[in-house]
Every structure is written in structure tokens, then in C-alpha cells.
């Protein structure tokens, strides 16, 4: 991936995101949904959670915001709802819905949300992400907090593009992360001459 390719890729993402937001757009319904998810009432929260899947991609931005909340229970509510939504979108025969959600997840990843929120978004992306998500995930290999999660996500997303990114990242990686990337490549069926996993080497007392 080079800069031009990345810009082009993000441009596609932005366009797709605009279209979905416009199509989805019932702000009042989204606001009520979010308020219900945050409710102190068990029944209200449960009913809102059950509606998560129905809202689809349009509520991902609001849920991603909530995922970065300072309030623990609000973060947890957002996480539950996002996973419910991602798992519904990933069902067989719903490819366009899955791609719409992927677009929103990628946008949410390209933000300054707290690292733990983006970590969860990364793992959600790992469940349905395809080529569209890969450049953004790859960019997080440069984050000291998120690189290990990003590596795992690239390992999980099938296809040539994720494999090529892992190879490129392996070639460029510093020593302190090279073996992690090698492990992913081996899991993806690549033979790396001389690589020996340190999985059996004790590192603590």
C-alpha cells in the first residue's frame, strides 16, 4: 500500500459512508436507541439491544462514540450492540449489508477514539472485514497500543490482500515485532526460512 492508494481507498470509504448515512438517517430514532441502550432499566436496555441488528450501519458511528464513553456501562452497552449488529450483518446472503457495516467500522477506526474502543472495533472488523478494511487495519500496525490486535485481524481476514500486507509489514518490521508478524504468516501457510517461534521460551520467573 502506498500513500496514493491509501487516499484513494479512504476516498471510496468516505463516499460510501455518506451514501449510507443519508439513506439511514433517522436521527431521532438513533438518539432514542442510544438512550435506551444507556437506560438504567433492564427491560428497556434488553429491548434496545434486540433492535441493534435492525438499525444496521447507520448507527455504527453513534455506537462507536458510545464505545469511547467514560462511563463503563455505556461502553459495555455499545460493545454489545455493535457485536449484535456486526453478527447480523455477516449472515449469509447479506453481503451489501456487511460491506456497509464494514465501511462504518473503518471510518470509526480512522478516528482518535480511545485505544480500547478501537481495539474492540478492530476485532469486530475481523469478523466481517474484507479488502476494504485492510489498509486501515494495516495502518494500525504502526500503533504501539494496537499493533498486536491489528496483526491478529490481518491474520484472520482471508484473501491475497491481507496476506500481501502481512508480508510487506514483516519485511519492514523492527526486531521487536518481526516474530509476531512471522507467526501470522506461518499461520497463513507461508514458510519463513529460519523463523523459530518463541512460544516455548519462558519470559517470566
Amino acid at each position: 500500500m502506498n500513500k496514493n492508494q491509501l487516499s484513494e481507498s479512504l476516498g471510496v470509504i468516505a463516499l460510501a459512508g455518506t451514501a449510507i448515512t443519508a439513506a439511514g438517517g433517522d436521527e431521532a430514532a438513533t438518539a432514542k436507541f442510544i438512550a435506551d441502550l444507556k437506560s438504567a432499566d433492564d427491560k428497556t436496555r434488553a429491548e434496545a439491544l434486540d433492535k441493534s441488528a435492525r438499525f444496521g450501519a447507520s448507527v455504527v458511528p453513534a455506537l462507536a462514540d458510545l464505545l469511547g464513553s467514560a462511563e463503563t456501562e455505556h461502553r459495555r452497552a455499545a460493545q454489545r450492540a455493535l457485536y449484535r449488529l456486526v453478527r447480523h450483518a455477516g449472515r449469509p446472503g447479506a453481503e451489501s449489508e456487511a460491506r456497509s457495516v464494514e465501511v462504518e467500522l473503518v471510518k470509526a477506526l480512522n478516528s482518535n477514539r480511545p485505544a480500547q474502543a478501537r481495539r474492540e472495533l478492530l476485532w469486530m472488523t475481523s469478523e466481517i472485514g474484507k479488502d476494504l478494511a485492510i489498509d486501515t487495519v494495516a495502518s494500525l500496525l504502526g500503533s504501539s497500543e494496537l499493533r498486536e490486535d491489528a496483526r491478529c485481524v490481518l491474520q484472520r481476514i482471508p484473501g491475497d490482500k491481507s496476506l500481501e500486507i502481512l508480508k510487506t509489514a514483516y519485511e519492514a518490521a523492527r526486531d521487536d515485532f518481526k516474530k509476531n508478524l512471522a507467526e501470522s504468516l506461518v499461520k497463513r501457510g507461508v514458510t519463513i526460512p529460519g523463523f523459530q517461534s518463541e512460544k516455548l521460551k519462558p519470559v517470566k520467573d
Partner: protein
Amino acid sequence: MNLKPSPLGRRDFLRTTGTLAAAGAVLGVPQFLSSRVLGAPGVKGANERIVVGHIGVGGMGGGHLQYMYAEQNRGNVSIAAVCDVDSQRLAKALDTAGKDAKAYKDYRHVLERKDIDAVVIATPDHWHAVQTVHAAECGKHVYVEKPACCTIEEGKAMVAAGQKNRVAIQVGSQGRSQPEAHKAHAYIANGMLGKIHKVTCWHYESPADSQPVPDGNPPPELDWDLWLGPLPWRPYNPRYCHGTFRWLMESGGGQIRDRGAHVMSNALYFMNADHTGPVSIEAKGTVPTKGLWDSAVTMEVTYEFKNPDWTLIWAQPGRKIPYFDDDKRKREGIRDGYGAVYQGDKDSLIVWVGDGQVYTEPKALNFKVPAGGVEVYRSPGHHEDWFQGIRTGKKTIMNIQAGAATAFLTVLGNLSLLLGRKLEWDPVKQEIVGDAQAHRLMSRPQRYPYCL
């Protein structure tokens, strides 16, 4: 699979013990003679006294350690090492294990020791597969707590590691080794129920966290990074551990995994179905909407098997059937909050509990196998069956193929619930078909270097 252990010859023995003695002298670590070496005169040794290391010594791990300590006093085993990521638990375990045991935080120190024949793994579920595979790769026999694995990939890796390294792996679903399980098994195997078309399990609900607490710093005695191991990193929360890990999907998975690994293990065993699997799995249920725990509170999972056709149902809570003798229930503390009904075309049979306790109906208890009837294996005890497997190479009663098959039921049940849809499963290839997302979720990439 019939394991053939490869005991060392005398030349290997001399070379090994010489090396060990030298290494021990340098490191100051007490060295034991592995059970693979010849016993010294007057010492219970060759292929009799098994040298064990314990990885994870709280909860069930503490129980295993006490059992092994008693075995050590009987001269059957030597406890060489104890290991835990919690220094307080480790100190307590060292007191229990005796003066010759060495304590470690990192389990890989245990695996490095050539004098250790076997390990008992009683860590949280998310560690089971990684540690079992690593132990097998180091030539150790393994007793691993149930459920065997958290993902399909993990289970397959455990089976492959056991076969490749020719070690005995026993999974801690000890219900199969209980006396009344033997009775129920014999009754069913001799056709007393006719053709069984349905097995219905019941179990009380998983808890929800009614008093959540915020994330915080781990206590000083806990190595949080090592506790997480293969899992993605996240902040510590007291609701993760100890023990409560089982109410989280990624590290436990709720009652269906904790107790389903017992009750459904017995079902596969009695149905002679360890080598098979369902063709479809469909779950429904309710999940917590507050707190850290995310395992299903209530759930019902329907598994359809083909050739022969039968249905397995995991129902939480389902329809509880109280144990028939209330006085005995109180006297013996029978935990009848879980069990299973085996429904055949001639009769039905109830089997209560399913773990360290197994109880069944008098008609099965009083049953005598007729001449020419089917004699089913009678386990000498779950640990003893494992020892037998180590010494003789005989397949253990809850071998890793059976352990993985049982764990797959629990994994697939949870996966169907999480995805909100029915899953199709190829029991021969052991993979989900027709659902790309579910197929991805058959594995979970692990943090390096805590990986398979």
C-alpha cells in the same frame, strides 16, 4: 488411536540422568527421575512413579494438587513443579506440594524440565489448548481441565499435537469415570432403551453480573498479562478472575461450556458418538445487558445428528427433574440442578449431575449384563485411567478426540447464539459450512507468543 510410549533405553537413561544431574546442580533445581527411566533398587520407579507438574493451582487445580499429593504419599507420583500467575495461589500450592516441588510463574519453565513426565493443566479455558499443545510438543502427557478448547481450531490442534507426539491427553470431564455412569452406559449399550432419538439436558442458568465494577489495576500478586495470555489485551477488571472467567464468552462461555462439558460428554459417550458430531446447531437465549459477563443467562440449543439420527438438546434452565430419593439427595449432597434424560423408543433413563457426581435410576443400577451382552469399559477413576494411558499407551476414557468433540458442541452452541442463526456443520471435516462469518469464528488469532 493406540499410543505407544517410547520408554528410554538404558543408554538413554544414563545419558539423560547424567545431563539432568549436571543441570540440576547448576540450577539448584531438584531433579526427579522421569517415569520413563529405570527404577533404582528398592525404589518404586520404572514406569510406576510418574513425575508431574501442575499448571494452574487455584480452584480445580488445587483439588488436583491435593489428589496428587495423596498419590505422592502412596509412592505413585512425584510432584516436581507447581505454576500459577497468582503468587498467593502459588505460595499456597507450594505448601501443599511438599519441599521438593519448585514454583514457577511461567508454565514454560515446567515444560522445559526433562524430568517431568506429565502436567496437570487447570488454568482458565482460554489457556487450555495453548498449554496442552505446548506440553505435548515438549513430550509431556497432559491432564487438562474441561472444556478442552475455546475454538474449533484449538481443538483440532490439540488432537493433532497428541497424535504427533504420542502422549496421553485426558480431559477433565470425569463423569465418564464415575461408577453410576458405568451403570447407565451398560444399560444403554445393551439396548434397554431401544433406539434413542433424543437426549435432553437441563441445567440452571448462568449468572449475570448484578453489581458491576469499573476496570482498575490488577492486584500485585497477579500477572495480568500472563493471565490474559492468548486473549486480546484489555484492562483488568475484578470480574474476570478468579473463577468468574467462566461467565465471559472468550475465556469461559457460561454453563453450556462449564457443565455442558460434563453432561454432553456423557451423552456422546453413552451414545457411542465421540467420533461424530451434529449436522446442525441452532441456539436461542438471553444474554446479560449489564456488567462484564456476556455468557448466555438462559439458552436452548438443538443439535441434530445423522446416521444414526438423534437430537441433543441443551436447555438452560430446561425442565429440571429432581433426584428421586430426597433423603439421599440431602445426605449425599446430590446436585440435581443438572442432568439429562435419554429417550428411546422402548424406555427412557435419567442421569443426574454428570461430573464428579453421577447418579442414575435403580433400573440401571440393578441391571446385570446378560450372557453375550455388551460389556462396557469400567474406569478405575479418572486420574487412574490417565495414569494407565501414560503407562500402557491405551486410549484414555476422555481422550482428546472425545474432549474436542464435546467442546465443539459447546463452542458451536455459543456461536449459534452469538450469531443469531442456525449453523450447518460438517462432522467429517469438522467445519462450519455455508456461513463465511461463522467459519472465520472457528478460530481466534492469539497474542504472540501465547499461540498454538
